[in-house]
């Protein structure tokens, strides 16, 4: 670890075993699939075989008549929705579109789009019933590729859609149907003047495929709509409150009548924020009066949840001979999928964020296509735009005959500089990370062997703050119950308990964290945006401060001394010496044992809405070998260096970084959505949608650079998302170094690399 200024901690910086560890390794942890309830029905979903079609007629009568079938629902069973805006935490949703995505309205807009759902006494009967639902489609031409969808001649998904232009200086949108939902622009300085100053100008175009998060646990939901109108939903989600709010909006039921119980979650990475099955299970439960359980087959998970955008990005960079970047102009077009709302905004904001620039112009386009509605995926939007910038920068360095890290260091973002939006940057570890890359033995080592190359790339992500609530109770045995609204994906029970333990001078094992339902804790935004250890840590700190204050008060009362003479220190309370000269001291455990007899146990709660999360910054180095005969890339060595603020639990921080890198390697090399000419998604299985397997990746070395976040009592920065940003450009730059072939598309599959290596046909 590289540390700048760090206080001495007792708990923070250690790596204890997580509180939920034993249940998880022994199979006792309860996931959505484990739910069993009296009278449980099983739901199944009929999905569109077409990428784009009008639904002329649906007849569910034969399905409803099948013995064992208890209910069938279609879109018309939902209340009508007007256009609106729901804040999902990491992303937003318009309920008018959300309901049509959950069950298709007048049109199906992608292959796999849900059309109807059945509840039956067992899953096999439900599946039999799906085959009895008659749907008459009028098939329409489909458009998959983002640039084709932008053409005036493209098939139009939503005839009422008009381009929302939020780009100063751009012409107003024509009043005609279009697939371009949004044109946004950020601008700083004067790019024309900047390019005029440049000695070298490089402009390149890049495309990226659609990628899926690849969480192992499929989406699932069980719902029970009680006769008294109270609805309970058990689900696998990153945000129980986000599910509650979406279900409430779609069903037009007050949030106070919906309780969401978050089960353990087998991965989400942004994909488990939007609802798919939850409102459908609730509707089926209302119709039957019985609880209804649903889960997605793997093919549905891949075909019909929310992968990333496929993108087209053009980047133009001008630089002087000394490496100073004089201007960057980027054009970013992101496919949103069936409904507006891609992550292009974050793509625009992050594209040039690692660098301090005087002249930047970035245009971003949000474009609907006949593909599943995109959702958040780990640093949503950032990997594609930063890939384009980092790959182009490599070519600038080459043209300037400059060391790739020297070029980046020359332009590194520093505290006080402003980003492309003109906002000032807080303390950020960009320079520290870049220096750590440049001096790392991996970067300075010689490359040995044929067809081996090295690449570097930087990554930026702004992280999230948002709202978190928690409560804590001091028990008489000296343990502390910590009630959390944040579902635990990446070890946050541990990281939050550790921060409370640190503040109270206890051990993590003294803290008993539990993740609870939406009726049991205050509003808490999603586990996403790398925010949970930051925001939950602030709340844990606040709870600790409150507990300490109350213990000091109590000790003063017990000792009959003035409060200002009592201090909380070293995991207990100390007061002035007694009249007989003995020290007044009660350990946490001792005073906890006296609480009941001295005014009662202590229970506190707190909410944080701070947005001082601090940005995340990463630099990766990778060595690859390319087999010239097959086009296959092997990752030989990988080093991920990251400003982690303060590593609360270094082993989990390292795990987050390694996980992000592995997902990034998948994007770089083999993951992609494969569509046929009619827009059918063909590789909806983990056999053919190729996430990396264990022996595709080497041991990923991590270097934790600790530049504490001044906006957090323990210096925490979010760490989970930024490591997915650099792998695509780093590996692309390494392939170019290995075989002299520059690729402009990810994934860089063996077939694509072979196409470059084989003689032109």
């Amino acid at each position, binding site marked *: 670890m590289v540390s700048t200024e760090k206080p001495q901690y007792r708990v923070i910086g250690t790596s204890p075993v997580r509180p939920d560890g034993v249940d998880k390794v022994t199979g006792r942890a309860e996931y959505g699939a484990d739910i069993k309830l009296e009278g449980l029905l099983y739901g199944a979903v009929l999905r569109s075989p077409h990428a784009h079609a009008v639904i002329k007629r649906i007849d569910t009568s034969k399905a409803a008549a099948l013995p064992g079938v208890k209910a069938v629902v279609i879109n018309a069973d939902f209340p009508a929705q007007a256009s609106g805006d729901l804040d999902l935490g990491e992303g937003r949703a318009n309920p008018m579109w959300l309901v049509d995505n959950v069950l298709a309205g007048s049109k199906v807009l992608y292959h796999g789009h849900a059309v109807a759902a059945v509840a039956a006494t067992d899953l*096999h009967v439900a*599946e*039999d019933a799906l085959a009895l639902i008659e749907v008459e489609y009028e098939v329409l031409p489909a458009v998959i590729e983002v640039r084709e969808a932008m053409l005036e001649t493209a098939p139009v998904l939503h005839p009422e859609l008009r381009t929302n232009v939020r780009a100063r200086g751009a012409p107003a949108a024509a009043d005609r149907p279009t697939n371009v939902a949004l044109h946004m622009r950020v601008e700083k300085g004067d790019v024309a003047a900047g390019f005029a100053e440049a000695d070298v100008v490089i402009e390149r175009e890049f495309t990226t495929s659609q990628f899926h998060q690849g969480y192992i646990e499929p989406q699932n939901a069980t719902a029970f709509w009680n006769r008294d109108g109270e609805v309970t939903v058990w689900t696998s989600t990153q945000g129980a409150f986000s599910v509650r709010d979406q279900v409430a909006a779609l069903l037009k039921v007050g949030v106070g009548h919906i309780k969401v119980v978050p089960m353990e979650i087998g991965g989400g990475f942004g994909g488990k924020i939007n609802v798919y099955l939850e409102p459908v299970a609730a509707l089926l439960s209302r119709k039957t009066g019985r609880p209804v359980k649903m889960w997605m087959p793997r093919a549905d998970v891949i075909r019909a949840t929310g992968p990333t955008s496929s993108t087209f990005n053009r980047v133009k960079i001008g630089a002087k001979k000394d490496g100073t970047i004089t201007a960057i102009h980027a054009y970013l077009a992101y496919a949103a999928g069936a409904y507006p709302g891609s992550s292009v905004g974050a793509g625009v904001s992050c594209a040039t964020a690692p660098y301090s620039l005087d002249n930047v112009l970035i245009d971003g386009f949000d474009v609907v296509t006949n593909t599943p509605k995109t959702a958040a995926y780990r640093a949503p939007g950032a990997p594609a735009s930063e890939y384009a910038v980092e790959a182009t920068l490599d070519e600038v360095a080459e043209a300037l005959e400059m060391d790739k890290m020297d070029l980046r260091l020359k332009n590194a973002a520093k505290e006080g500089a402003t980003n492309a939006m003109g906002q000032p940057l807080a303390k950020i570890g960009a320079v520290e990370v870049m220096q750590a890359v440049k001096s790392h033995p991996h970067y300075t080592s010689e490359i040995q062997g044929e067809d081996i190359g090295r690449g570097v790339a930087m990554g930026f992500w702004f992280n999230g703050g948002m709202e978190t609530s928690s409560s804590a109770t001091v028990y008489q045995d000296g343990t502390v119950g910590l009630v959390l609204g944040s579902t635990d994906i990446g070890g946050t029970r541990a990281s939050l308990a550790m921060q409370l333990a640190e503040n109270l001078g206890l051990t993590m094992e003294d803290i008993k964290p539990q993740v609870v339902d939406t009726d049991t804790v205050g509003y808490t935004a999603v586990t996403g945006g790398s925010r949970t250890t930051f925001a939950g840590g602030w709340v844990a700190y606040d709870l600790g401060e409150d507990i300490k204050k109350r213990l000091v008060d109590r000790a003063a009362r017990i000792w009959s001394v003035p409060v200002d003479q009592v201090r909380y220190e070293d995991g207990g309370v100390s007061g002035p010496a007694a009249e007989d000269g003995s020290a007044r001291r009660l350990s946490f455990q001792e005073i906890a044992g006296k609480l009941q007899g001295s005014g009662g146990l202590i229970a506190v709660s707190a909410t944080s809405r701070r947005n001082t999360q601090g940005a995340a910054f990463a630099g990766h180095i990778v060595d690859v070998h390319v087999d010239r*005969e*097959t*086009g*296959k890339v092997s990752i030989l060595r990988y080093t991920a260096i990251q400003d982690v603020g303060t590593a609360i639990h270094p082993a989990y921080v390292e795990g987050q970084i390694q996980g992000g890198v592995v997902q990034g390697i998948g994007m770089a*090399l*083999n993951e992609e959505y*494969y569509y046929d000419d009619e827009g059918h998604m*063909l*590789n909806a299985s983990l*056999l*053919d949608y*190729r996430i*990396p*397997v264990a*022996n*595709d990746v080497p041991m990923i070395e991590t270097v934790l650079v600790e530049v504490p976040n001044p906006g957090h009592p323990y210096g925490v920065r979010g760490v989970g998302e930024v490591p997915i940003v650099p792998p695509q450009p780093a590996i692309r730059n390494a392939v170019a170094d290995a075989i002299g072939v520059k690729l402009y598309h990810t994934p860089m*599959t*063996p*077939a694509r690399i*072979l*196409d470059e290596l*084989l003689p032109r*046909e």
Partner: protein
Amino acid sequence: MQAVRYARASSVDEAITMLREGGETARVLAGGTDVIVQARERRRHIDLFVDIKHIPELMSLTLDAGGGLTVGAATPLYRVYGDAEVTRRFSALAESTHVIGGTAIQGRASLGGNLANASPAADSIPAMIALGAVARVAGPAGPREVSVADFCTGPGRNVLQPGEFITSIHFPARPAGSGSAWERFIPRNEMDIAVVNAAVSLTLAGDVVTEARFSLGAVAPIPLSVPTAAEALVGRPLTDATIAAADEAAKAAATPISDMRGTIRQRKHLSAVLTERVIRRAVERARA
């Protein structure tokens, strides 16, 4: 998945009877790693599974005195590659069975199942073709033998008549100076379907190739025999030029399609690359 009946046969004759009574929607069940998935996904309608794993001869693995190998149709793959003699003498077979699925699959999946499933990309079939294997078949009309090279008739289709099933795969003895090898190309390092796979068995007398049999998978509707590649080598001394000629013959024999697993250009190119690689490895083994 619809409800299915399950019956356990304890002899070949009993299985024949059960299959006859079950009619068109009866299927034999060996490891089930293909048919159960197909039934679960409603790609195949099956009313009756006749489990053949309790017929001793179908679970056997026998090296006879003459050096031939007979593998029961339902014998799990781990026993094939786990046998040191099989690995030494029938290297291509061991190599191909070692990479079909993971450990759990290999405890169930069988050569008979891999062959009957008749996937164009099946990993073990090119190895069986190169090794000159023969499938022994039982059925209502009595037993018969079919060369593995002639067994598949199209993707998922084979020569089996209603009520027939494979009982064993027989591999002829290996002449002195023989070596074999199998290799596939996959984008990942494991758990993938071959973009192309290739196998060869050859026999050397000094530097001259006296016998050779080639096979390619995933480049045609069925796993291919490639006699033209053999013709480029047999009767000639082994040189870079004759090996290159065999590679070119393999490439010319491949008639692949472009799909989500690979492109025509990539598959034709890989047909030559893999053919070269298996020749060189088989030669090493022949000389060892």
